[in-house]
């Protein structure tokens, strides 16, 4: 009976199916690894899809230069543990290479600049598919995203010219120069990801669990002080028990007050909370109503 298949197994089966389809249909795929929970779950799913064989793709990390040290340390630990290849693209280098201008303001986001490093890595390595951990429930532009999302040679997403995706038949054929972004966990919600992490006891960076941290209180949001964010004399600086609900840049990801020190605590907290993941933690999505849609059109994933 289909009822006996737990819904997490259904999501897992769908994701593994997509990962294998990516391996089979593309010549040079890559898995974009951010160090966050969604991409860690992707790695876990890839282990299930391809072991005892090796991954048919490398992991690619776009280092913004503003990453949490805990996330970088975890990345290296995981790569070493699974024995797979890692390629690092550097936003710092793209900034120098193209003389890019940093976003101004108190909490600058390198989200837009990240796209340059990403497109460089894609071009240098001739990747024809990049697997990412984006989910449709994150944001309304992402709700319209395909599983296989075709991008032109500028990496641009054209929401009006998306290919129809019928049943679970995935068409990965693209013209030369074009490439595809692949989203195996499109149909997962934040809660599904956590339930899955709990079910398989998946290791995560310590950032996701409660710890004491010095933060600046900025418009109800807690932004950690760091080498990139120094408090001003006018700032309210607090030391609080916090955790990160998403792991982005240190400069624009807010911590949330929390005492959750286990996956179960986090699951309870998410069920209770009435604010969305990105709404609570991303300072850069709130710039405009269509911030994500615009970034995606320029090549963001």
């Amino acid at each position, binding site marked *: 009976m289909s009822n006996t*298949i737990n819904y997490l197994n259904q999501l897992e089966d769908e994701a593994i*199916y997509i990962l294998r389809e990516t391996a*089979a249909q593309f010549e040079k795929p890559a898995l974009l690894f951010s160090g966050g929970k969604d991409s860690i779950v992707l790695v876990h799913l890839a282990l299930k899809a391809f072991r005892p064989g090796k991954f048919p793709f490398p992991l690619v990390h776009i280092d913004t230069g503003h990453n949490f040290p805990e996330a970088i340390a975890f990345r290296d630990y995981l790569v070493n543990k699974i024995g797979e290849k890692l390629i690092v693209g550097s936003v710092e280098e793209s900034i120098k290479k193209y003389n890019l201008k940093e976003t101004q303001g108190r909490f600058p986001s390198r989200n837009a600049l990240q796209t340059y490093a990403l497109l460089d890595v894609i071009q240098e390595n001739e990747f024809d598919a990049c697997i990412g951990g984006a989910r449709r429930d994150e944001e309304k532009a992402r709700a319209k995203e395909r599983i296989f999302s075709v991008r032109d040679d500028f990496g641009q997403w054209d929401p009006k010219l998306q290919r129809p995706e019928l049943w679970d038949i995935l068409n990965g054929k693209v013209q030369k120069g074009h490439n595809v972004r692949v989203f195996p966990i499109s149909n997962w*919600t934040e809660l599904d990801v956590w339930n899955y992490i709990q079910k398989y006891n998946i290791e995560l960076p310590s950032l996701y669990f409660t710890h004491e941290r010095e933060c600046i209180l900025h418009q109800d949001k807690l932004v950690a002080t760091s080498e990139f964010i120094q408090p001003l004399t006018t700032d309210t600086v607090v030391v609080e028990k916090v955790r990160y609900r998403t792991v982005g840049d240190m400069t624009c990801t807010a911590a949330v007050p929390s005492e959750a020190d286990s996956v179960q605590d986090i699951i309870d907290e998410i069920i209770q909370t*009435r*604010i*969305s993941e990105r709404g609570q933690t991303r300072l850069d999505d709130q710039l405009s109503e269509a911030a994500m849609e615009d970034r995606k059109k320029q090549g963001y994933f």
Partner: protein
Amino acid sequence: MNTLKFITAGNVDDGKSTLIGRLLYDSDSIHTDQLGVLQKQTKQEGVDIDLSLITDGLRAEREQGITIDVAYKYFSTKKRKFIIADAPGHEQYTRNMITGASNSDLIIILVDARKGITTQTKRHASIGSLMGIKKAIIAVNKIDLVNYSEDVFTTIKNDFETIKGELNYDEVVYIPVSALVGDNIVAKSEKTPWFEGDTLLSTLEHIVISSKENLASRFQVQWVIRPKDEENHDYRGYAGQVLSGNYKTGDTVKIFPSGIESTIVRIEKHQETVERAIAGENVVFHLTDNIDISRGDSIVKTDYQPTVSNELKTWVCWLDNSPLQIGKTYLLQHRFRTVRVKIQGIDRKWDINEWQFNDSNEVRLNDIGQISVRTNQPLFFDAFTENSKNGNAILIDETNFSTVGALMFL
């Protein structure tokens, strides 16, 4: 707990977006920060929050107030996880509705209580049925605007019952609702005491989607795992999805295209040995003999074999701006097996508004018809109505690789 994927079909003013908004809102699936944005956007006076705004994601959609593309929405209750394919109802976006319907187990067809069954209703019902959906809910919406009249509801129900015979649904449920006010969506309405059925949400939670486990057993090889390292020198596993039916260790199987018979010695699921695998599961098969098997090959049980042919007749839904061309070569992707195909001819076209077949020599964007095709290599398939997972395919343009047609084999 399992997942139910459903699509909502309705016209611009039938209240489709409001219905989805209501389901999400009443099941507490909208976050407070998203609500804040919606409150800001709601321009209607006296309305606190315009529920229809929840589903429109793209700038152009908000500007024009219509849904252009399929958007996927998620919510869950204690009983089920739901995935909604929110697709546009306009005729010029039929292809988007086809896409949404192909990924759904159930269709909610919205009927405006004041208008009754219209040409649009028939078009939506027809697309859902054609794409293989087996369960339909006819939501008679705006029941508040006809004074909660039982007669109106019964007339619509009877009207749909008379056309149901021409469709392939095996269960149709009728519910009087008001998406705007909330009648019979999550809570039973006191204003329709004559209605004895369940609310919309309760119906969605309890409806049983029939499993493909009891159909003929079909498996296509998606990926061959051959590590070739010392430890796994002799490891050769065929990874893929059980499309339908079930397999167990010891089963005699036949491999297509080679026609060779073999036996399953081991079934692996995520590196653990399992005795059995059922429809929907991704597993790895190991066979007794060392046979040359590659991606796209079919491994089927010998009791009920698929049709093997390089000539076939099929339904086609055309999704591309340039029309289908007779004599032209396309690629046909039958899940993991892609072959070249020539269109031999258009047999007939389905007039989705009039519900009749017409002779025709062209199939254009949003058209639905039946065609004959010839492939350069044989396919191993079933009729779509008998086994949808092994009876569907897509047509791909050979030059720009767009997906141009959805195929359901006859």
